[in-house]
């Protein structure tokens, strides 16, 4: 990695391992996740439900449920290791330095509290603002996230808002502490397409205006393409591929990424979809070797025995698959994906 880049890194997750105690046994939800976030960039984490992406960011925010433990790893931020912080110390980080946007804006807002108060609350309690100033600031925030008629809306309750508006409130709350990092946990999954587009635009706009660094979690590749500078693909608690958006979308190296990219139809898809057979692994006893191997039609024998390391492809592009090993047979990405990428490139050119 280049020197310049290192200086810019504001958050670094190193070999994070998180597990949960459950009735059935220990669920190893996050297994050695490593990534970093640089100033002003948007890093996306893509994966299916249960892949460990939400757990990762909960670990960063220090809001893991009580049955979860961080087994090992570091989360470095501003010279601190967040995994070692006490609850007390975390208060100075949560909200003020790192903001979080939730997946479901309905359950994330207190149903019986006025939205204005919910925004103000953070300002008053953790930033010790006066009530009047906090109100002023809250109104500004509401305006900033595109809520019309703020004076009236200020005194309304969450249930009086539409889904998109609620999400705007959640964003306003996240921004209240003026954080430098914004973590978005599937912020648009529960929303309609048109609303989603608007929220994404809003997040991008805010990011630019406030020079935020964003960690964006989603399972929707379309959203990733819209938002991310860099993409981490997670599967079964591991990052299987990481790279810039262009790299991951146009030169995917991991079979899982291939499958992801080609499994969803776009508006021009006509050919049979490339589907991933089988089901995601049980994280109580993840399979040895590459967790994806059992569903992978390109699985090598070693995939079932040994975990692949992250092979470096370019300075920014890494993938954890034995297919990148020099001795591995050369496997082309599926034909369907090839045509799709081709089409995408053409479109991009066409648009320009």
């Amino acid at each position: 990695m280049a020197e310049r880049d290192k200086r810019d890194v504001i958050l670094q997750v190193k070999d994070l391992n998180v597990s949960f105690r459950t009735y059935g046994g220990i669920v190893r939800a996050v297994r050695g996740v490593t990534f970093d976030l640089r100033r002003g960039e948007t890093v996306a984490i893509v994966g299916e439900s249960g892949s460990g992406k939400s757990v990762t960011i909960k670990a960063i925010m220090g809001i893991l449920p009580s049955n979860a433990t961080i087994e090992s790893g570091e989360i470095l931020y501003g010279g601190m290791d967040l995994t070692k912080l006490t609850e007390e110390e975390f208060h100075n980080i949560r909200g003020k330095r790192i903001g979080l946007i939730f997946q479901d804006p309905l359950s994330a807002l207190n149903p019986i509290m006025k939205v204005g108060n919910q925004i103000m609350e953070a300002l008053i309690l953790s930033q010790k603002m006066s009530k009047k100033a906090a109100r002023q600031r809250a109104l500004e925030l509401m305006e900033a996230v595109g809520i019309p008629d703020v004076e009236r809306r200020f005194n309304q309750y969450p249930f009086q808002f539409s889904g998109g508006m609620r999400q705007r409130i959640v964003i306003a709350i996240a921004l209240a502490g003026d954080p430098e990092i914004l973590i978005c946990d599937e912020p648009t999954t529960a929303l309609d397409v048109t609303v989603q587009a608007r929220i994404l635009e809003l997040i991008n706009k805010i990011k630019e205006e406030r020079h935020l660094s964003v960690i964006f979690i989603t399972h929707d590749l379309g959203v990733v393409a819209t938002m991310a500078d860099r993409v981490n693909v997670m599967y079964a608690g591991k990052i299987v591929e990481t790279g810039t958006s262009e790299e991951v979308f146009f030169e995917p190296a991991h079979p899982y990424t291939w499958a992801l990219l080609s499994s969803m139809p776009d508006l021009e898809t006509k050919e049979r979809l490339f589907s991933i057979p089988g089901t995601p692994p049980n994280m109580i006893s993840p399979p040895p070797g590459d967790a994806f191997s059992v569903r992978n039609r390109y699985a090598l024998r070693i995939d079932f025995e040994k975990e692949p390391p992250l092979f470096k492809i370019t300075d920014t592009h890494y993938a954890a698959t034995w297919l990148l090993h020099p001795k591995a047979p050369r496997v082309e990405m599926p034909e369907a994906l090839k045509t799709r990428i081709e089409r995408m490139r053409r479109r991009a050119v066409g648009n320009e």
Partner: protein
Amino acid sequence: MSDSTYLLEVKNLCRHFTSGRGKNKLVVKAVDNVSFGVKPAETFGLVGESGCGKTTLGRTIIRLYDPTSGQVFFNGREISGKMTGELRRYLTENIAMIFQDPIESLNPRMTVEEIIGEGLKVRGVKDKAEIRRRVVEMLKKVGLNEEHATRYPHEFSGGQRQRIGIARALIVQPKMIIADEPVSALDVSIQAQVINLLNDLKEEFGLTILFIAHNLSVVKYFSDRIGVMYYGRLVEVARGEDLYAKPLHPYTRALLSAIPEPNPLTARNKKRLDYDPERDHDYSREKPEMVEIEPEHFVYCSPSEAARYREICRSAVKAGD
């Protein structure tokens, strides 16, 4: 009377929900004067945002709700009239439904065999072995195996459960399937499985499908013709390619423009269109109605809008030339 070209024909169907009484009476027009037809062996996609009434429409057709007004014909027979035992039988023999939520849609207290076999039982199949045989057969068709028959839903993953749901719908060999958001609650990697499966089965059984979804890409991929719904109304109906190539109704355009493209090069620069009925239409003088702008391309518009849309189509054709 119904058009014999359609297997399912919906005519001016309305379904209103009312709450409160007197001055407080509140009417939600979940489905408001909707008309369309589905041809045999065709897949008709219904797309729209949550709350637009597409689910209500599907449920009204299969008579989970009673229509407020309007008619529905199936194979020429009206199925929107008074509910009789005979009609119920007719309906259940011909139309089946697939539901959205793979967790919600299977009774947790019943085994897979019981769930799938229930339709047979209702139809009077009493022989246990026969039920078993057909359940297993169906399970195999949806990619599960015999061993799964004795299991309870909670043991399955989302995709598997959805396949069980499909098996339940298909075991009674209906002519038509109403698939209500069958993939939207599934993980990305599983969605493709289910879509492929549906596609295969459609071929195999020659099914007619009413496919309801909010994801335009999926609908487009899966359907022959697509209807776009907005607040209880069908605003545009067209063949898939036409709709994509020549979206006429401003709402359809907005919807199309909002789809995030999995293409980092174009996604960010994409121009998003907004739809605001107040701004985009002026219905104060002219009343809108469904107008066939092109063959098989209907748009809900006023006469003046229709003229404008025709113009757009013509120019598009020219451009295409």
